[in-house]
């Protein structure tokens, strides 16, 4: 029944007729640069990280942009470059910047900063899709870097709001040994204080046996002497021990943080607000569920596309100005429009609080009010921001 060839031919005819540039195509080159990292070995092999994590999201964003682009004569091209673990990111970055002034970067914070400070990167627009560090949005912020991935503080605040909403106000924390675990632990501690929860106990995870075999025997005893608490927080962003803590605690307590009740940028369990369409588009393209980094990369590319559509320009400075202006609104399939904070370049967004099988709630939660935008109850708000690179902020 369907006649795609004919339909496509018609569309191109339309494009030529309705394009503001006549038959001229405006190229919009976007580069995706990834620094591969060594991951510490973890106890379980159940959930390998997909090779194309993030990149698949950017590809979907490019495809989404292309649908509007083909009507307007905007040609979105995505190029991907990867650097193996331990190798320097900068030569690849210079090469990418020579071809495109719009750059998505998935790299650790230190590498991202070195890239942003390159002379070649001045005047370019970089979107951070891989580093959740709060410092990058604070004292270490850069005017040429916007952040599509939510900060650790935003996610931790979402969880703290949820716990306060449920009146599960006393918590204990188990923190893993790796830098990512400790950064997440620090964010959880800060949010605990910000939203009036009590941190009853706080200890490092220092058991080094194989929990896959002995979880039932070991975790009850390891959690037996924790000070009484409503919820056990687990900081295990490495994905190592957390999965074995669930349902093996000495006291019957919910687990939250990196396992159990988790605050995330995106999850396969989201289906409201049109999310199921995004999920199915992504599934068709990547053959797997959409992960938070995929979502960040999708949102980054869609943000660029939205700015190009509305401004008619592919100039990084014009795009940056539009993205930071009140006119920008991205439909992120999370119930509210997404926008960028003009004091630190962070993409403002609702944070789903999920279990593995369902969305539990969507932060910000109703009781948490804000004088200008409730989304700004998540993460570092304008008055607290240590970022000075964005000028207008104060």
């Amino acid at each position: 029944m369907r006649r795609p060839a004919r339909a496509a031919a018609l569309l191109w005819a339309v494009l030529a007729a309705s394009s503001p540039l006549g038959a001229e195509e405006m190229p919009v080159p976007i580069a995706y640069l990834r620094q591969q990292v060594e991951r510490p070995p973890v106890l379980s092999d159940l959930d390998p990280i997909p090779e194309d994590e993030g990149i698949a999201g950017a590809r979907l964003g490019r495809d989404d942009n292309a649908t509007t682009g083909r009507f307007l004569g905007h040609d979105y091209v995505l190029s991907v470059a990867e650097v193996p673990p331990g190798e320097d990111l900068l030569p690849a970055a210079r090469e990418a910047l020579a071809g495109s002034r719009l750059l998505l970067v998935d790299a650790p914070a230190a590498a991202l900063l070195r890239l942003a400070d390159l002379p070649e990167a001045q005047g370019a627009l970089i979107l951070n899709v891989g580093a959740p560090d709060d410092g990058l949005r604070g004292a270490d912020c850069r005017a040429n870097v916007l952040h599509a991935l939510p900060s650790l503080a935003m996610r931790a605040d979402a969880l703290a709001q949820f716990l306060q909403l449920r009146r599960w106000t006393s918590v204990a924390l188990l923190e893993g040994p790796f830098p990512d675990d400790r950064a997440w632990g620090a964010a959880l501690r800060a949010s605990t204080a910000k939203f009036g929860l009590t941190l009853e106990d706080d200890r490092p995870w220092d058991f080094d046996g194989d929990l896959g075999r002995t979880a039932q025997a070991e975790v009850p005893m390891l959690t037996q002497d924790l000070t009484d608490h409503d919820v056990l927080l687990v900081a295990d962003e490495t994905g190592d021990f957390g999965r074995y803590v669930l349902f093996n605690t000495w006291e019957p307590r919910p687990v939250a943080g990196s396992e159990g009740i988790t605050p995330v940028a995106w999850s396969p369990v989201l289906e409201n607000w049109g999310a199921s369409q995004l999920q199915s588009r992504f599934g068709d393209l990547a053959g797997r569920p959409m992960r938070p980094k995929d979502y960040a990369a999708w949102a980054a590319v869609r943000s660029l596309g939205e700015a190009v559509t509305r401004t008619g320009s592919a100039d990084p400075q014009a795009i940056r100005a539009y993205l930071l202006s009140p006119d920008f609104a991205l439909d992120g399939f999370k119930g509210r429009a997404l926008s960028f904070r003009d004091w630190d370049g962070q993409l403002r967004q609702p944070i789903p609080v999920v279990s593995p099988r369902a969305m539990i709630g969507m932060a910000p939660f109703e009781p948490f009010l804000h004088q200008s935008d409730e989304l700004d109850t998540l993460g570092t708000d304008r008055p607290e921001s240590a970022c000075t690179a964005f000028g207008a902020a104060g």
Partner: protein
Amino acid sequence: MSRLLLSCATLLAAPAWAGEIWVTNELDDTISVIDTGTLEVVRTIETGERPRGITFAHDGSVVYICASDSDAVQVMDPETGEILHDLPSGEDPEQFALAPDGRHLWIANEDDAISTVVDVESRRVVAQIDVGIEPEGMAVSPDGKVAITTSETTNMAHWIDTATHETFANTLVDTRPRHAEFTEDGGRLWVSSEIGGTVTVFDTATQGELAKIRFEIAGVHPDKIQPVGFEFTADHGTVFVALGPANHVAVVNATTYEVEDYILVGRRVWHMAFDANGEKLFTTNGVSGDVTVIDVASREALQSIKVGRFPWGAALRPGT
């Protein structure tokens, strides 16, 4: 015996039948039928999976239902509630519009970035037209010459010549366009943008933008004002606009484009339908699972009617 009782009941009920509003319950796979006189649910009818768009044939002989997850438009006998047959609809049909000729059904295939035109008599697909991502809103001009599809992610209204099935214009609208309707004279096209929070009015002749309507409700954050479905009153002087999670319906002057009133309704209001004489408006409230009845003259909510889970579409069954 049971047949005799049934026909007696039908006879008894017939004189009191003022009209019916049919409401699709997205998460229950049912239709709730509301009597517009008694304001009660008088029947619940099973449908295919995830029913959303609903519209009656002009003569009321059949009702068309988008069963999105069944990938079908179902054709139902409104008397018996029986599914007569399915129409080929393309994947994931969400909304549709019946052309003035009563014969061509224009269907937006949300998951497939196309619009499908089906001949309801021959039950064949007449054309499939590539449009933007997540086509959603569908409208056909009163003279039947122009069809509109809005695409949610592409953020455009696509103008289609119904004779050639070719797109002749694509106009940008604010983020996530949902619903489109022509005015009675066909001179203007209204399009709602859910995430953009606006309704745009276009001049049909030039496809130029005439007005952009914005909404503001004290105590409700602008992000929660998400215009979706809307309907013109019978005199075409007023438009009622459902504002989604703002839980209000806006009353807009169709001439001056001024917002004159806001009416509090149930949670996440989607779509709406008037009763036969245009005195009452029935809104579907997705999250609260009910329908709010609004008195059109006084612009006040009269009562809520509990229906199934996640009511979405609403249509008046033409009187007999």
